[in-house]
């Protein structure tokens, strides 16, 4: 396979981190060569097969294979005469790029011949696209594996609702874990048929027996709080999750003949599925869970149970303290430099971090006033309004449709974030991108405040592919005794859409304030990389 290796290296000059992933894929492929002989041809054309294989690996990587596949095919398709390695470049639709890893082979030679023939045909029809992919003889070497860890991304179930096989798989998994499956509610707008839409009136806990033997009661309570919206906001949800896990660890006893490090992780899996069913996990929660699992699996086997538990509890305590509490203090310190006397600051909805910043600034005797913008149906701004007014800050309150009326008075906009994506987009409550858009039109600076633990390796460019649909009945309102949409279910061509999140493009955001400092939106992947190296 010497030829293949040089090819790999050459190709890696143009697509850096793909190399190690390809190597891994090739190894895996060779392993599974014996098992599957038949399905290869079917899988080449079906999209589902690739996802099925990926599901079999129980990796915790969150969403989005979007970044990888597009990078791969175009340089590979016009590959010149040297036969591409078996693992790479099945020259078919982009989304199957991770799939080659799982393909069984006929023999490698057959594959190569097939592929060469296909490529000749394609090149004949496409013509001169080839030179793009010619590996340039630059000195870009194969990157050290520790820095560019290949991430085998598996598409999470909650954005594949329109795929019946995935749904079936999930049902089986939940059955195994003895967790009830939550069913969708109401007519879904066709653009969002790939997402779940639940009703708040049918919480998952109704289908659980009391007392539930499978799920710890603290987790049941947490799930109910999530699904009813009692605990809302990414920081609050993460902290509540970590406290609940602390309780679980306290009550945990290692069964005989089991190791704590492995058994506890397995114990946590059904809890996580349950919480996911109650309300899809947020990016911050995902990162917290990853951290906990890592800590648990790093517990040495000779550690006694009591010690291990104390160690874990301390870890969680430290995580909360460092990533949330101290981070908030650091962000407040940076932000206060940005608030000057006489400022009129606009905030949207209720972000615990932004409220904290404003309260701190007020205590440091800055003179400013706040405009709170709110939107239906959640009306979270009222909560923020109460907190700020209690502190004594002078506030104005408007709805989001009046934002272009009020914006000429505003000097700065402070926004909170739910997650910061790796391509610089800010994922936040729906309406945030709108405020950023109008602020940009009026030339008002937009500052986003976000802790680093919310940084996420996913990428997303619009608010459709991965989002959350809330209960559509929330949109119904009674005015002057009349409820217009009361019978919306009966009208077949009427749908209600209650989005929860949206993504703000980085050109609307002027500055991101994190606990590491003030960075532009585009530096998020740098921070992620530094964090990964540290860990």
């Amino acid at each position, binding site marked *: 396979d010497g030829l293949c290796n040089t090819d790999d290296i050459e190709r890696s000059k143009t697509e850096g981190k793909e190399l190690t992933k390809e190597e891994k894929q090739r190894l895996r492929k060779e392993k599974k060569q014996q098992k599957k002989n038949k399905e290869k041809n079917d899988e080449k054309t079906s999209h589902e097969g690739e996802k099925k294989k990926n599901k079999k690996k129980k990796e915790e990587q969150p969403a989005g294979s979007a970044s990888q596949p597009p990078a791969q095919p175009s340089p590979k398709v016009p590959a010149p005469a040297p036969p591409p390695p078996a693992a790479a470049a099945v020259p078919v639709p982009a989304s199957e790029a991770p799939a080659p890893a799982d393909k069984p082979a006929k023999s490698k030679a057959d594959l190569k011949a097939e592929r060469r023939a296909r490529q000749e045909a394609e090149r004949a029809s496409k013509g001169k696209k080839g030179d793009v992919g010619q590996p340039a003889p630059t000195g870009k070497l194969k990157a050290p594996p520790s820095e560019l860890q290949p991430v085998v991304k598996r598409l999470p179930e909650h954005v594949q609702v329109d795929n019946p096989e995935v749904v079936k798989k999930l049902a089986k998994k939940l059955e195994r874990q003895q967790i009830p499956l939550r069913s969708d509610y109401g007519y879904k707008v066709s653009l969002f048929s790939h997402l779940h839409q639940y009703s708040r009136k049918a919480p998952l806990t109704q289908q659980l027996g009391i007392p539930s033997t499978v799920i710890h009661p603290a987790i049941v309570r947490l799930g109910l709080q999530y699904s009813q919206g009692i605990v809302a906001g990414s920081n609050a949800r993460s902290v509540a999750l970590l406290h609940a896990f602390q309780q679980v660890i306290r009550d945990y006893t290692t069964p005989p003949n089991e190791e704590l490090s492995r058994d506890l992780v397995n114990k946590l899996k059904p809890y996580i599925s349950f919480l996911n069913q109650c309300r899809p996990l947020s990016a911050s929660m995902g990162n917290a869970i990853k951290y906990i699992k890592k800590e648990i699996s790093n517990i040495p086997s000779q550690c006694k149970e009591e010690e291990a538990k104390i160690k874990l509890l301390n870890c969680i305590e430290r995580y909360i303290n460092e990533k949330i509490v101290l981070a908030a203090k650091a962000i407040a310190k940076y932000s206060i430099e940005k608030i000057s006397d006489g400022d009129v600051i606009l905030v949207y909805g209720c972000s615990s971090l932004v409220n904290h910043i404003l309260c701190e600034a007020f205590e440091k005797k800055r003179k400013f006033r706040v405009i709170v913008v709110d939107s239906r149906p959640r009306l979270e701004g009222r909560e923020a309004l109460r907190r700020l007014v209690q502190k004594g800050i002078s506030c104005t309150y408007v709805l989001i449709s*009046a934002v272009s*009326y009020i914006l000429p008075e505003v000097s700065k906009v402070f926004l909170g974030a739910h997650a910061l994506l790796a391509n610089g987009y800010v994922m936040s*409550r729906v309406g945030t991108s709108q405020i950023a*858009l109008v602020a940009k039109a009026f030339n008002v600076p937009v500052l986003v405040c976000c802790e680093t633990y919310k940084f996420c390796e996913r990428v997303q460019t619009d608010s459709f592919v991965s989002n959350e649909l809330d209960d559509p009945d929330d*949109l119904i309102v009674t005015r002057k005794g009349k409820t217009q949409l009361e019978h919306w279910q009966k009208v077949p061509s009427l749908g209600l*859409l*209650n989005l929860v999140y949206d993504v703000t493009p980085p050109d609307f955001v002027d500055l991101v304030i994190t606990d590491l400092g003030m960075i532009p939106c585009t530096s998020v992947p740098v921070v992620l990389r530094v964090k990964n190296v540290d860990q």
Partner: protein
Amino acid sequence: MRRRHNHPDVVPNHFHRQHTHTQTPSCPVSPLISSRFYTTTMPAPDKEIDLTERIEAFLSDLKRGGSGTGPLRGSAEMARETTALLRRIAAQARWSNAGDLMEIIRTEGRRMTAAQPSETTVGNMIRRVLKIIREEYARSRGSSEETDQQESLHKLLTSGGLSEENFRQHFAALKANVIEAINELLTELEGTTDNIKMQALEHIHSNEVIMTIGRSRTVEAFLKDAARKRKFHVIVAECAPFCQGHKMATSLSEAGIETTVITDAAIFAVMSRVNKVIIGTQTVLANGGLRAVNGTHTLALAAKHHSTPLIVCAPMFKLSPQFPNEEDTFHKFVSPHEVLPFTEGEILSKVNVHCPVFDYVPPELITLFISNIGGHAPSYIYRLMSELYHPEDHEL
């Protein structure tokens, strides 16, 4: 015979003890009763009273609430009622020449616009009628309309600045002509929605996603007409706090159109999938901008960002010769109770709450106006205005 004690400026003749001294300076007296024109014979009281009553009823209707929040009338109805009332004034009031009639209408018009400043259709109709009177007068005089209306530089220089016209000549047929012209105007008003509807199929193709905001009867008719032949999807932004979008959505879905209701906050989020934005408006301003329901500016900005065309369906009677410069007269506010209800408790006393009704949309964000006389670009609006209104009538 009803007594009207609540209007100190208009007192019926029978109970009139003191002429003109009881007038309060702020409310101009109706010229129909105590003007100096009727010194000799007392006019037949019934017709006058009847007319006055009608005007007063109209004014109190206007004061109670313009279209949308008060007794629910659309702008079209308002325009029709105003024109009908003006026709009645022309028919029943006492006037001997065009100048008198114009003076009467102008005074009544000022009172009407003062009653509800945000309802611009009333003012527009008054200006239309004034222009009609000028035209009819000019036609009766025999001079061609062209030279009369155009204010060429030559004319301005040679005439010495002052307009020679004082409209004092008496023409017998003027009254009939004016009433006939107003009738034509009424017919035109009745056909506006149909004219706009007929253009729907030129602008909507199948499998489109169209976005709209709030409730506009014109847009509703427009979309329903297109839905007879084409299948498309409509997204309606509900436009809090009045949530008129809900009514629009139910009405459209009952006509069989695939409709989705979204919140105002999701406008930018879904805009990337929208092919066209079609909105109605309350007023079209003289620079081609709009005074539309709040939230429209955000919608227009989002459409501009995604390069989605923004189409405004507005009949010609909404075109108003105002400019958006006067900040204090542009916005209209309603009770903040709609935004932050009284149930919120004591924080109400510590916060300012704003609930504006209208938004200004600059003409750069608009792609096309569809009116009953066809489609125009926003840069053409000034020309249409010069055809509809005379420059001297811009200030009533």
